[in-house]
């Protein structure tokens, strides 16, 4: 890690961060004016003059933006990387700002109560917008001199095809499940598919990271197309209230799955294109320091079994094992345990293959694992399992709330799965590297991952996984 002096850190981090914060502040200020939050800011300086409140807000935005700059000064200055850091930072400031510091500044007691949190839901989304805009502006300010975004013409085509294909699968599947095919997902699929490569570029990444990136991407689109555009286009206002969010929840799982599928599909199409048209063998056979696919699948099987055992800890006291048994026509908890373990191992194998050579320490194993667990909660817990049990997908606010214990189980499962697979992968190292060299290679890979957006991605996905169901609980 390159050490940086305080002055250098301020010049390269705080100053552009403050400027980027101002850009984020302008957008967030507009949002605050729309949701009627500026008078609360004005109360901080004991005034009711809105322009003054806006100025105070901009001052805060610049200071918080400077903090963001200091935080990410070492990260790669690219929009696609910094975006997730901005989202995490914005969300953290929701916990720290309106929920904690604002009451203190206003001389009120800090409550951290659910009612207050729900009241501040519009502010939460505003903070996410602020974080995203600040991150984008910071990346633009810190872009390397002379750099231009390079998007090959094939990339949007791939994204479009992946988005349309995923949407087709979802429309068909949901049509079979519910009898009402949600054709609007086609439109979303086209838009998401076009946007994904434009935003994230031609990334040579594995399926696993792409899936998780797609989850966050789908969530961002949910805010746009389900929460923002409908009321903005029809009434010209923003409805980010609790009821507005609850009403938009049925769109959330579909868009998250659409995002994940689009991202994975884009990656697969890129890989297929490379396999067909790449004539330089070095680009096809990149040096890999971890296990092969088959061995990784074996590790996934072992991790899936371990994770399944821990998941059973949640299912047993919740009394859900007999329900799981019904998936295979059984009734008893023991049958449910067997069915559950078989599913856990099958999902574990997919994790082992998709996330092969992506875990370099316990943190990365846990991070990828919990995110994958969350994705399977949406796909399995909320969608496939209810349908296979004879019902409809639980894509409602009440469904999400009721399924919260299963979410905790999926997260525990993912954490154990990721940790076990990561640990097993670390046992494999090529013989031509000495222990010191292998350790150096691992540290380099870990450093590369740290410079990217992976840690922010894990945190953001877990934040939304735990916060959204809690806030919309009835």
């Amino acid at each position: 890690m390159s050490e940086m002096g305080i002055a250098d850190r301020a010049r390269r981090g705080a100053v552009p961060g403050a400027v980027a914060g101002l850009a984020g502040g302008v957008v967030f200020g507009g949002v605050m004016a729309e949701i009627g939050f500026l008078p609360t800011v004005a109360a901080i300086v004991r005034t009711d003059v809105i322009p003054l409140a806006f100025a105070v807000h901009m001052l805060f935005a610049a200071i918080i933006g400077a903090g963001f700059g200091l935080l990410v000064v070492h990260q790669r200055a690219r929009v696609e990387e910094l975006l997730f850091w901005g989202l995490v930072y914005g969300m953290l400031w929701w916990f720290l700002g309106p929920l904690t510091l604002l009451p203190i500044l206003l001389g009120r007691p800090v409550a951290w109560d659910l009612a207050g949190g729900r009241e501040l839901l519009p502010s939460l989304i505003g903070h996410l917008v602020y974080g995203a805009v600040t991150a984008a502006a910071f990346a633009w300010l810190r872009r390397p001199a002379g750099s231009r975004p390079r998007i090959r013409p094939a990339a949007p085509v791939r994204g479009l095809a992946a988005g349309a294909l995923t949407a087709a699968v979802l429309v068909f599947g949901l049509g079979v499940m519910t009898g009402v095919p949600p054709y609007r997902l086609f439109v979303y699929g086209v838009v998401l598919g076009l946007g994904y490569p434009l935003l994230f570029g031609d990334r040579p990444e594995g399926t696993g990271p792409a899936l998780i990136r797609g989850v966050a991407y789908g969530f961002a689109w949910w805010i746009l197309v389900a929460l923002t555009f409908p009321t903005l286009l029809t009434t010209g206002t923003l409805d980010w209230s609790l009821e507005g969010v609850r009403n938009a929840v049925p769109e959330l799982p579909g868009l998250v799955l659409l995002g994940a599928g689009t991202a994975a599909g884009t990656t697969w199409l890129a890989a297929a294109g490379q396999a067909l048209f790449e004539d330089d063998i070095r680009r096809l056979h990149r040096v890999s320091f971890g296990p092969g696919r088959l061995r990784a699948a074996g590790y996934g099987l072992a991790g899936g079994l371990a994770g399944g055992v821990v998941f059973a800890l949640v299912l047993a006291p919740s009394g859900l094992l007999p329900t799981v048994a019904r998936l295979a026509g059984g009734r008893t908890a023991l049958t449910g345990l067997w069915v559950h373990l078989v599913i856990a191992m099958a999902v574990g194998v997919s994790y082992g293959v998709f996330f092969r050579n992506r875990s370099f320490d316990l943190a990365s194993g846990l991070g990828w694992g919990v995110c994958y667990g969350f994705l399977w909660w949406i796909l399995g817990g909320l969608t496939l399992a209810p349908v296979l049990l004879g019902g409809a997908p639980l894509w409602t606010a009440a469904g999400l709330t009721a399924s919260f214990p299963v979410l905790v189980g999926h997260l525990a499962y993912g954490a154990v799965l990721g940790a076990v697979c990561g640990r097993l992968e670390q046992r494999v190292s090529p013989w031509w590297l000495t222990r010191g060299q292998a350790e150096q290679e691992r540290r380099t890979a870990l450093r590369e991952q740290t410079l990217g957006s992976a840690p922010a991605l894990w945190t953001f996905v877990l934040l939304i996984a735990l916060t959204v169901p809690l806030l919309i609980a009835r």
Partner: protein
Amino acid sequence: MKGRRWRLAGYGMGGALVAAGLGGLLVDARLTDPLGWALWSGGLIAVAAVMVAARLRTRPAERARVLYGAGAGLAGGLLVGSVQAYHGMLGHPGPAAFAAHAVLLGAVLGFVAGERAEDLATAFSCGILTGLLDWAVWQLTLRPLLAGRLPTWALASADEQFGALVGDVLLGGTAGVLLYCALALRRRAPAGPAPAQAPLPRVVIVGGGFGGVGTARRLDRLAARGLRADVTLISDTNALLFTPMLAGVASSALEPRHVSAPVRAALTHTSFLHGHVDRIDTAGRLVHVTTADEGMASVRYDHLVLAVGSVPYFFDLPGLAEHAFPLKTVGDATRLRNHVLGALERADLEPAARTRAEFLTFVVAGGGFAGTELVAELSDLVYGVLRHYPNVRESEPRFVLVHTGERILPELPAELGAYAQERLARRGVEFRLNVAVAEARAGAVRLGDGTVIPARTLAWTAGNRPHPLTAALSGGGRLTVDPFLRVDGVEGVWAIGDCAGIPGPDGRPYPPTAQHALREGRAVAGNVAAAITGGRPAEFRFRGIGVLVALGHRTGVAEIRGRRVTGLPAWLLWRGVYLAKLPGWEKKLRVLADWTIDLVFSRDIALTPSPPRAARHPEAGHE
């Protein structure tokens, strides 16, 4: 060893808790008592804690990060906790428990993400991540359990849970930033002199056959589990030859490459040296190796494992070294295949009856597994491709198996040996028993009883002797080793496989088979590791699983743990078992493809360039 005992005791205790909890849950079908669940989860936590403690015991850097993390957690806890306390949100179970919980959160953060915490953004992000996981574990799970309630994870008391979530997110984020600051300050402190690293013990394995590769693979696994040793495998072939399928190569049923698995691909932590071992200096603990380009090299060892196998032995009989075809290497098998096909080509053109008989007579010396399988495969090859040679009549080819014993396959029960002999005799194979080959000439093979068989093909499977490399240590025969596989009287040298006489429980040496060599390899690796770590070596004990012999087209004999199988089932068993044992999925698929193609098409009769007859016998790696 003491640490290992503690670790095992910890695992045992955790496992017992898990088992007790599971039992409790099964008994408590209505799931009303949290005890069973608590025992189960407590057992898992105990096992995880033992694993973490065992890891930290040997890693001071990680230990320091955990301590820094605990400090950062405490500082963050004081900050967040004071806000909560000031505003009356620090309810049950009180400030002390909250502080302890914050310390634990910080320690977990240091353990999980301490290495990443050298970067501010990552430390911050991982802090929040840890806080969120802590919320699910502590608030939703352990707190109800400690209060004597069954955790349900339902959002019934969402209000209380939301407050805890905010606290944990802020606590995690603060602890992450503080951990980064603490580690940054630590990095700036002047570092003391780096402790001198003791050199790793060097383990050298000579031989790339079943025994040598088995040893290396086992040491690989042990290295992955923490064994600190520098392991080198030296072999003059860079692939493990799957000898049970060698007869298939000689009969054109299998491609030579498909029965050889690259050694490099099978190893992860062990380094590989492609070279020929010339001499071993046991006094100086050096192995002298000749490599293709670099000339001589000396490799130092602390532990030397000899798995050099055996080489063909002709008992100094006249003409055998020049005219007999041994079957030990892929080169031998390819040479024999080309010779047989070449003899058919010549016979097709040859008008003289005597010379035709020489070309079309195939003598195999040795009625053990290798000789019996080979004569059956050669018979399949010749009769299978005969339609391509219109001038050779079906009655002309002659196959003779010469064996010094009373019956073939002496390792098998007499009934199975008789079955094999009867099946082969029905195909026209002649048996010359109780007689040995005495001499080989260009167009004839003379037996011990004076019989002369006109033949230009003599395949030799009737004699092996230990590798010459071991002669200096053993005085000529197999190396004498104790039940722990240590070579008698030579410190730091171990021996396995065909080159070693390993005493069994009854005092008789174990047979020189692949299944034994593989197990000996694993055993010697464990004993070498024990010698390095100060552990106790274990005696080698193994009871053979069984014997399988393929008798060519769709028939075979087998004895598995006393059960006898013959005919098609035995043949299928042979193929199934050896396909499963063949190293690597790629090779399995290739051999399977070869066998499948063989079902539809006749065998390939294209002559390929034969490798030259070896100037010296391979001295490493073939058993």
